């Protein structure tokens, strides 16, 4: 009996969906919109977290030491107010600890660059004490950082630079070419560097066209050697050391600095993007709400248009349960179709977004489409369909035949 009733309700629901094509398409479109928005955000969220974790894992660092948030300083040379002072001495002290294998200060600045035949451009600069951990895809690494020379900055400058792909395209340079780099245009005029290799590391770290140079040479050309700054210091612990206990030790010995593990640093990075994340989440909530409202509206108007016929069926003894079943089957069919369309659209949309993200900020695979994302899309479709179905079913259950028919 129940199976028969269900099949009959499904037949009636299917007939109505076919008959009301425009409303059906609008409802399917509404659910698809909600599913598309939710799956893309889920794919991006998962992608960002996993990409971040992969990057931190690939960086082969255990702890990150900063003097507080990195502040942009418009108008100052370098454009970034770095929070660590005396970076070389600090990293030397850190490296001397038994539980620390290496400590490397990293400096992020903005610099002017120019190649023959181009105007000065502003790009990000990534200062590192050695090329260890910097991946080179073409050419070779630069040869250390001899300019620091025990704190005097009297050592020779290598004048060697690595560029990322986007900087190479921006300046139309390749390995062996020469470019001018400096914190000011005047400094850039005086400092010519040889492009010794192409490296994606700096660009992926900073999400912008980037040149990678020895740390002390970056400090020199941005006029900051007096304070020996770094944006952060990365620490690799010895193999038998526990990162959490090293973190606690560093926090105790260097209270002026924030010490974070990879996970904490990733979380802190995400928290700094809270406004962007909240904006994205709000857009998805709005898209889901709009999709649900659209499908609900279309389905309820379908029910409203058939109200007299449904009321007539009630007068003939058709139970509220059967009519509610018709509404639920209709909305579930719409939800399934909308979910399938939304997920099908999300695949090319995710690929397009990945291409766009890679072109703009240099990260690849940020939008990761997988089974978990499909599950999110299916859940949104099912939720939207069930909500619409329950509201439509409730309106049918409450339908008073005499007030509707009014005869």
């Amino acid at each position, binding site marked *: *009996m129940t199976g*028969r*009733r269900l*099949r*009959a*309700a499904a*037949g*009636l629901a299917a*007939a*109505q969906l*076919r*008959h*009301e094509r425009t409303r059906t398409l609008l409802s399917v479109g509404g659910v698809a919109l909600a599913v598309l928005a939710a799956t893309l955000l889920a794919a991006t969220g998962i992608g960002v977290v996993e990409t971040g974790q992969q990057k931190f894992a690939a960086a082969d660092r255990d702890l990150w030491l900063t003097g507080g948030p990195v502040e942009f300083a418009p108008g100052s040379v370098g454009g970034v107010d770095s929070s660590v002072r005396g970076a070389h001495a600090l990293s030397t002290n850190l490296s001397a600890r038994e539980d620390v294998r290496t400590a490397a200060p990293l400096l992020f600045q903005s610099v002017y660059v120019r190649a023959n035949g181009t105007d000065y451009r502003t790009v990000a600069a990534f200062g590192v004490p050695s090329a260890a951990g910097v991946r080179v895809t073409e050419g070779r690494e630069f040869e250390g950082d001899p300019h620091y020379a025990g704190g005097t900055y009297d050592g020779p400058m290598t004048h060697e630079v690595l560029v990322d792909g986007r900087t190479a395209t921006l300046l139309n340079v390749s390995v062996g070419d020469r470019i001018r780099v400096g914190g000011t245009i005047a400094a850039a005029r005086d400092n010519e560097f040889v492009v010794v290799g192409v490296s994606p590391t700096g660009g992926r770290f900073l999400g912008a066209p980037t040149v990678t140079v020895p740390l002390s040479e970056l400090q020199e050309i941005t006029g900051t050697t007096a304070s020996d700054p770094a944006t952060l210091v990365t620490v690799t612990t010895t193999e038998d050391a526990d990162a959490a206990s090293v973190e606690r030790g560093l926090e105790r010995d260097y209270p002026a600095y924030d010490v974070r593990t990879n996970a904490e640093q990733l979380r802190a990075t995400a928290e700094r993007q809270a406004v962007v994340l909240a904006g994205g989440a709000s857009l998805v909530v709005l898209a889901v709400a709009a999709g649900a409202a659209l499908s609900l509206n279309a389905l309820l108007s379908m029910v409203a248009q*058939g109200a*007299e*016929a449904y*009321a*007539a*069926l*009630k*007068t*003939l*003894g*058709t*139970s*509220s349960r*059967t009519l509610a079943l018709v509404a639920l089957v209709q909305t579930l069919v719409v939800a399934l179709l909308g979910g399938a369309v939304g997920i099908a659209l999300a695949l090319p949309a995710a690929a397009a977004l990945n291409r766009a993200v890679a072109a703009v900020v240099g990260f690849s695979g940020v939008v990761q489409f997988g089974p978990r994302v499909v599950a999110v899309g299916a859940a949104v479709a099912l939720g939207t369909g069930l909500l619409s179905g329950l509201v439509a079913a409730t309106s049918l259950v409450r339908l008073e*035949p*005499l007030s509707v*028919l009014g*005869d």
Partner: protein
Amino acid sequence: MDATAAVACEGVTREYGGGRAGPLGRGPSRPTVTALADVSFAAARGEVVGVAGPSGSGKSTLLHLLAALDTPTAGRVVLDGTETTALSSRERARLRLDAVGVVFQRFHLLSALSARANVAVPLVERGVPRPERRERAESLLADLGLGDRTAHVPGTLSGGERQRVAIARALVTDPAVVVADEPTGELDTATGERVLDLLAETAADRAVVLASHDEQALARTDRVVRLRDGRRVSDGTVDDDG
């Protein structure tokens, strides 16, 4: 009350309104409207009974009570041997499914379904298997002269054809009583007469109660109950009234 009648009511009164308005029931008193006052009625199997009266006389209210769509404020209604007054909404729905067919002035067919499917819908609730539903619907439609229109949706049928589909739907459960409210109100004269003929034919083994303003329609009934201001004013043939 006539215990052998297919449907009967005794001293029924139906009042609407009353109580107090407002969400907490503290507003002004609402007036009580008496739609039907102390009306008794009976229709036996094989009988076509007309219900006549001007607008607001209580025709529709009486039909709703007879069809177990509503319950009286006072009095008793017995439909196919079951007193409806104390039944729950679900029990009345089940009784309607088993004992009543309703024909409306404006047909009220599901526009998405074929004529055959519209007729078969009440059988779904009864758990009748699909092949049997289909066979009974086609057979009824053929009896009503719509054998070649079974696959058509209501939008492609004329008014008379739609009303015949509605009659077939009312008859498909083989009810003891068919209630028709202004069944010819939307039809031209010739088509209306055809529909009335069909309703009369269906009364062979059931009671048909037909509300109408149309004296020509009422003339084709076995007797006419006339209402005015919610009260029965006469019960006899059209000739008696004349």
